[in-house]
Each structure stands twice: as C-alpha cells, then as structure tokens.
C-alpha cells in the first residue's frame, strides 16, 4: 500500500484528528547499476520535492525528524550512498568509493525515481555530491539548501585541518590522524561537539551510526572516501565559479560550532551568492539533531 492510499484510508476511518502530527515514513530499496540503494521517503510525490543527501557518520537517518516535520507539505526522499547505512556495500574492487562515482550513482537514482526538479538539501558529504551533479546539470535542482557543507578553503574547520596530512598523503602515520573519526568518540564529534544541550541529542542516532561503521570492511571504505575528499578541495574553485555565475536560489542553515565546516563556510558562500538566506544555530555539525523544527520552519519559509 502506498503512502497516499494509506493516508486516505486513515482519513476515511476518521481515526486521525486532522491537526494531529502523523508519523509515516516509508523505507525502500532500488537497484542502481547492481547496487541496492536504500532510501526513506515521505509525503505526496505530486507536491514540491526535496532530495536529502548526507554521508558520514549517519547517512539518511540524519533526516528522519526533518522528514516528519515536513512531510505533510512536501515530498521528501533521502537515499543512503553506496557503502553507507542500509544500502549495499559493494566491494571496493567493484565500486570505487569516490565523490565523483557517488555523484553518478545519485544522479541515476534521481532519474530512476523520476524526481522532477527537486530542491536538494545537502549536509556534509552531500555538498560535494550536489555540486558535482549541479555543475554537470545546472537545471537538475530547483533550489539549494546547504547545511554544514563546504566549497571554500576558509570553510575548512579544525577537524578538517587535522585530517589535512592524510588528505595530502595517505600512509600509516597520517591514517592514525583520522582513524579516531570512526570510533564512538569520533562519531560524537559530529553529534555532540558544540551542541547546546547534549541531553536533547537522541542517543539512538549515534549508537546506530557506530553500529554501521563497525561493520566489517567499513573502515577501509570510509578511509577511501575521506582520502578522496582531497578531490573536492581541488574542485572548490570550479564550484565557486559556478555559484558566482549561476547565482542559485540558496538557503544556508548552519550549526556554528561545527569543527568540520564552521560558519565561515556559509559566510564564504554568501559572499559569492549575496541573495542566499543564512540561518545560524548555536549547535554542532549535525544541526538537525537540536534544530530540526527550526530548520523545517526555515525551509517552509524559503520554499513557500
């Protein structure tokens, strides 16, 4: 039974108070070039569409609450990248874990799911994937929402500076600098570092993130992709040029205490796209954990 039928059925039974918040998200998988990509999906596909992209450390589960907040008024879909969350984990001999390759997979996913000019919400690793797709196909996204993602040298925070020797030269010594990111303490850096009130952070999310990152073979895949982040830094000037030329319709929502991509990353974008709307929150990289309701309100106001 699809979402619409279910919703109508509930309506017919008059069980649901129409003002009551409902909680229906569907979970599916679709085969893209032999890889089963997991996605979560909510809302009516005929409404404005939003595709939500995130990678490390928690993939599409980062958007669960935001989807609950917005699904009455928008269609939302959030895939897990290959190797992440509940998607297949192809062997690295069969699938090269690069941002370029992931961007190709996600572009195909958008075509397969017949998305029509969605707005993109890009968080963290979702940013480079988005910029790669958008520079190839400037008309594919209708609007852009960037959250704690980056396209500028000055937007690299202390955690990225710490990883810089690894990005430049991957060896045993430099790997020691970044391996802690894949432990519980590293995961907590994304969730809790800079959070205003850690008591409001749902432990389920980082516990599950740890569970997924502890799976066999994950460390190697995650290190491959992190090492490939250097290719994003090389691309930054191209993305900046694209931003200046295209002047996309852009909403920036930012956790200002992010140690990966602090608010300087947002300010740099706003310098090149002055019409961009910026909302800063006193929280961590994963700003949705504490501020999903505020960010949902920003999105409603931005998209109408």
């Amino acid at each position, binding site marked *: 039974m699809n979402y619409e039928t279910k919703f109508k059925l*509930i309506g017919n039974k008059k069980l*649901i108070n129409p003002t*009551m918040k409902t909680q229906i*998200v569907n*979970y599916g998988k679709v085969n893209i070039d032999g890889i089963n990509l997991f996605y979560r999906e909510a809302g009516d596909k005929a409404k404005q569409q939003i595709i939500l992209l995130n990678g490390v450390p928690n993939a599409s589960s980062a958007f669960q609450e935001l989807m609950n907040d917005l699904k009455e008024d928008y269609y939302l879909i959030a895939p897990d990248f290959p190797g992440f969350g509940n998607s297949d984990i192809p062997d690295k001999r069969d699938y090269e874990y690069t941002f370029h390759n992931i961007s190709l997979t996600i572009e195909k996913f958008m075509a397969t799911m017949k998305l029509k000019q969605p707005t993109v919400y890009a968080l963290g690793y979702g940013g480079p994937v988005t910029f790669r797709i958008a520079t190839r196909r400037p008309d594919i996204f209708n609007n852009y929402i960037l959250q704690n993602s980056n396209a500028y040298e000055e937007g690299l925070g202390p955690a990225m500076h710490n990883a810089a020797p690894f990005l430049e030269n991957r060896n045993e010594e430099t790997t020691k600098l970044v391996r802690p990111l894949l432990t519980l303490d590293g995961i907590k850096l994304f969730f809790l570092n800079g959070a205003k009130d850690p008591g409001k*952070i749902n*432990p389920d999310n980082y516990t599950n993130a*740890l569970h997924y990152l502890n799976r066999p073979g994950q460390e190697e895949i995650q290190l491959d992709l992190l090492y490939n982040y250097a290719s994003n830094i090389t691309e930054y000037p191209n993305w900046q040029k694209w931003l200046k030329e295209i002047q996309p319709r852009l909403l920036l929502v930012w956790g200002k205490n992010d140690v990966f991509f602090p608010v300087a990353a947002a300010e740099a974008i706003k310098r090149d796209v002055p019409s961009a709307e910026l909302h800063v929150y006193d929280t961590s990289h994963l700003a949705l954990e504490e501020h999903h309701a505020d960010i949902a309100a920003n999105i409603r106001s931005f998209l109408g």
Partner: protein
Amino acid sequence: MKTTRVNYRNTKVNGLNIFYREAGSNDSTVILLLHGYPTSSHMFRNLIPLLSENYHVIAPDLPGFGYSDKPDHQEFAYTFDNLTKHIQEFIDQLGLKRFAIYVFDYGAPVGYRIAVANPEKITGIISQNGNAYLEGLSEGWNPIQKYWAEPTAENRNALKMMVEEGTTKWQYFTGVSDETLIAPESYTLDQHFLDQPGNVEIQLDLFKDYANNVALYPVFQQYFRDKQPALLAAWGDKDPFFLPPGAEAFKRDIPGATVKFFDTGHFALETHVNEIGAEILNFLEKLPK
C-alpha cells in the same frame, strides 16, 4: 508551529543507571511507557511526539536493555520481579503519584506487577500486545516452555537462536503487510544491544523467568476483576507470540475494557503509530486526572 522536545535522561536506581526518555509538561498527566523484548524505549520514538503535547510522557529502559545498565547476569538477578523492583523504585524516585501505564510484551508483566502493588496510582492501562492470559500465548513459546519444563543446558542453548539477527528481523516483519513501514534503525539498534558482550545470557535468564509471569496471570486477572481499571487493549492481530484471544480475554474480567485490533504484527507501533496514538489519546482523555 508546535515543537516537541524529548529529553534523554539518566538516573541511578538501586545503584544502576536507568536511561529514560521524557517529554511534555511537568504539569500534565503522566503516562509511563514500558517497552518489551528485545527493544528499549526506542520503540516509543514516534509515539512520544503524538502524546507529549497533552501528556507528560516517561519511558525508561529496563535494566539489561537499551542504554540502561546491564550488569553481568551472575551479579544481577534477571527476573521480572527484580526488573519490577527497579521500575517501582524509579517511579518512587520521580515522585509519580498517579499515572496511566502503557505496557508491551515484557513491559506487561512488569507493569501489571506495579499495578497490583499500587492500584491507587494507576489511572488506566493500555496493553499493546501485553499478555495476561494463557490463551494469548502462541506456539512461538514452545521452545521457551520446553526450557521451563526441563531447564537443561541443551534447552537453554537452543534458545540462543532467539537473540540472533535473523530472529530479531523476523519479529519485526512477521504479520506486517507493508514492509516499507519498518524502519531499519529499529531492529538494527535492538541487535546492537543484543550483540553486546554478556547480553545473550541476560536474555536467556529472562526467557527462563518468564514462567513466573505465566504463574502470576491469575493474580493479574484477580486484580482486573477486583479493581476494574480502565483498560485499552491495542493489539497487532498477527503477532507471532501473543494471540488475539489474549486481548479479547480482558473483557471477561473487565467488561468495560476496549479492545482494538490492528492489521499488523508484534511491534504494532512500527506500522500503526498514528492509529494507535489516536486510540490512546481518545482513551486518556476519558480518564480521571
């Protein structure tokens, strides 16, 4: 727009860390949510926002589950009596004087023990696949009943398949017609905790002690007859462990009980949280404060 904030708290109860989720106003009527096997208060993550606009919602993780402490089974008696003792102490520490109680699976024998001991505190009971009658037990209990009858190492070891990933997923999908409603984080998080060192023995101890719940069914039923608590049974009618006759049976002892079936399995909240949430709100509204 109304926003729902959930607090994730920890408190020491008899020396154990007890984790709980709390939402809603301190001035509102309290509803205590007690989870089942093999999950935790995580199972209430979607129900809490539906209830917390009007109610003060409190959902602890039982010792041995979720984020609560899980002492080694040789140092802590994993019995339902002992779980109840800790939840009773938790209730007393929080100073809860009057509350409604939502019980599911393992939460039921704990919650019914609490109701029997504190009938004056209970404003109403919501039993979601929270069994109290022999006719509610399915054949799914056979391997466990075998262990009760002959508590040998062999029969204990045979139950280890119950805590494996495949079984956990099976519990979530059995009886569910629309599998796209099952969030993978549910069984993933459950399995994460089951796979922690020592957890298997904890669960095997509790399987064994479940016999004492069955032995207490007559006591629970006597309480239902004597006190006639307001009761809503909200039941997944394709639960492989607790059968619909277990829900119907409440009406025998509490003629005023409401029994509602939902076309789903054991973890009915995973697929029918909106429908069950609406029934609960309707039920709670009629209770004395």
